[in-house]
């Protein structure tokens, strides 16, 4: 599904080049439940962002479902993110002026789904995640766990083949985190959605079926289980 070849990413920090990733080679199959682990600054988020076409590599290739991401223009990358990738962020990043249902609907609106169809689908997904009663509430009226469920709903509403989650449980208590991880695992098993997490949370690593460890921007280990 995803093939990463000799991936490099160099940032500029006040004019000083920072080598975030060094020649990463990685292959990810459809239906994997994979965690990218490593200490802070190891390049986890950078790798996730590059796979998700949120950033541009300095060199190397990322092939996503037979498409070379670096050959695509801005609009094509937007299209891939919209149609084939779901994102779950550490800080939830819901749109504050929209209700829970509208936050989920927004993605369907961008996909050109009709108003009635998207209202129905977004409510269905919220109900599946156990927060259908929060449909008309705005994010500032929800707990962290509830907001993260809405973020998950937004990420999976159009059944994308890939979901990228950057430290999704970092701001949650362990009970909520556990529940959310079980939810995502269930979706992985039922709908064959590939989940890639970046995390150093033990709970996430315990749920993952494959762990890739980065250290100083290099691939240190692959497929390690705790």
């Amino acid at each position, binding site marked *: 599904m995803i093939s990463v070849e000799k991936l490099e990413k160099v940032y500029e920090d006040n004019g000083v080049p920072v080598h975030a990733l060094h020649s990463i080679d990685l292959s990810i199959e459809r239906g994997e439940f994979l965690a990218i682990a490593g200490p802070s600054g190891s390049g986890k988020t950078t790798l996730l*962002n590059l796979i*998700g076409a949120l950033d541009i590599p300095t060199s190397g290739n990322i092939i996503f479902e037979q498409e070379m991401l670096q050959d695509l223009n801005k609009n094509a990358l937007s299209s891939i993110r*919209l149609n084939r990738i779901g994102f779950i962020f550490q800080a939830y*990043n819901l749109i504050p002026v*929209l209700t829970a249902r509208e936050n989920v609907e927004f993605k369907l609106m961008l996909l050109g789904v009709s108003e009635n169809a998207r209202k129905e689908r977004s409510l269905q997904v919220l109900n599946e995640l156990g927060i259908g009663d929060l449909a008309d509430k705005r994010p500032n009226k929800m707990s962290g766990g509830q907001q993260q469920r809405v973020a998950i709903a937004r990420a999976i509403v159009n059944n994308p083949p890939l979901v990228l989650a950057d430290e999704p449980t970092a701001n949650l208590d362990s009970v909520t985190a556990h529940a959310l991880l079980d939810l995502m695992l269930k979706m992985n098993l039922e709908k064959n959605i590939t989940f890639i997490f970046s995390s150093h949370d033990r709970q996430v690593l315990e749920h993952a079926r494959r762990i890739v460890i980065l250290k100083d921007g290099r691939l240190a280990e692959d497929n390690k289980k705790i």
Partner: protein
Amino acid sequence: MMILQIAWRNLWRNKRRSFIILTSIIVGVAATDWMDGLARGYTTQMLENQLGAHTAHLQIHAKGFNDNKTVQNFMRNSDSVMMAVKSKGQIKNYSRRIVTFGLLSSASNSSGISLVGIEPNQEQCVTTIHRNIVEGKYFTNTANEIVISRQMAKTLDVGLGDRLVAMASTQDGTVGSELFRITGIYQSPSLSFDKMYVYVPLQIMQQMLHVDDRIAEIAIIGKDIDSVEVMKKELSAKLGSTYEVLSYNDLLPSLVSQIELMNSLMYLFFVLIGTALIFGVINTFLMAVYERIREFGVLKSIGMKDVYLLIMIELEALLLGLIGSIIGTILGAGVVLIVGKVGLNLAIFSKGLTAFGSGAILYPRFDWFSIGIGAVIIIMICLLAAIYPARRAMKLQPMQAIMYV
């Protein structure tokens, strides 16, 4: 529709900021409407007062009279001219006159004047002197009546019923004179006009100047002031080169220039207001965009294309401009309409205003086109002002934006 919904809600995320910029738009629009109404009223009053006092829309003279206003240059065969005038459908009214320079004397004083011989019944269909009578009557068909201004009465130290002697050069080069009795005193909005113009019956003046039935001019009021130049062309073509047909633009060049200057200054005023507004709106939207950079990053990450981002921000600007324009227009136009009915008493500036001929009470004028254009321009300004902040948002890489602190 959802993007419109988001734009509307985003507008009220920071209510205080939105109210401040909205207030500046409303005040800007209302101020331009008000200034436009005031300027329009001022220039229209100036023009109407001048045209109504004496000039009218058009005047017909014998060729050369306007450059040399002597008795020798009076019109001959005015009947043929009258026939041409009567045949033009766009003409509302006309009046025959004699106008010459002369001297008016009372027992105590004298003053140089423009002595105007009129047919009172026709003249009151063309000019407004009869409405400006403040003492006595306009003309009563009694012998040798004269109507002078209050200012002239003060200069000559006379009042109603007093006698005055008018003198002027005659056709044969001698000095003609006639004794008149004051039957009416007028006061026009223009002090400079009042200092000069004095009215007597046409026939008396023709006798005084030994000109038989000749006249100096025919003053014409058209049905529509906007078609005056067309009327002028048509009459000139019909009457030929023996006569000159002059519009108020030809007869009052300095007034017309003044009005054009006023209009130019108003455009400058609008440009200044527009410029101030554009920077205010740019600043507001820059702040709004910088506050939401992370949110824009999230929107891009879930697949929103840059064009939608641009549309969203421009919709916010459109809504702001629309609300501000509508409220500002209602406020500005409302004030113009109300004050236009009751008048704005600028008595403290009255000397200056009467010198310019507009009068101390100004009646602002309402013009749909100006007000509409003003509102549209403000909306366009808001849309333009939002482009730069929108482009800043569009240029960001999604990750750059999400990580923005």
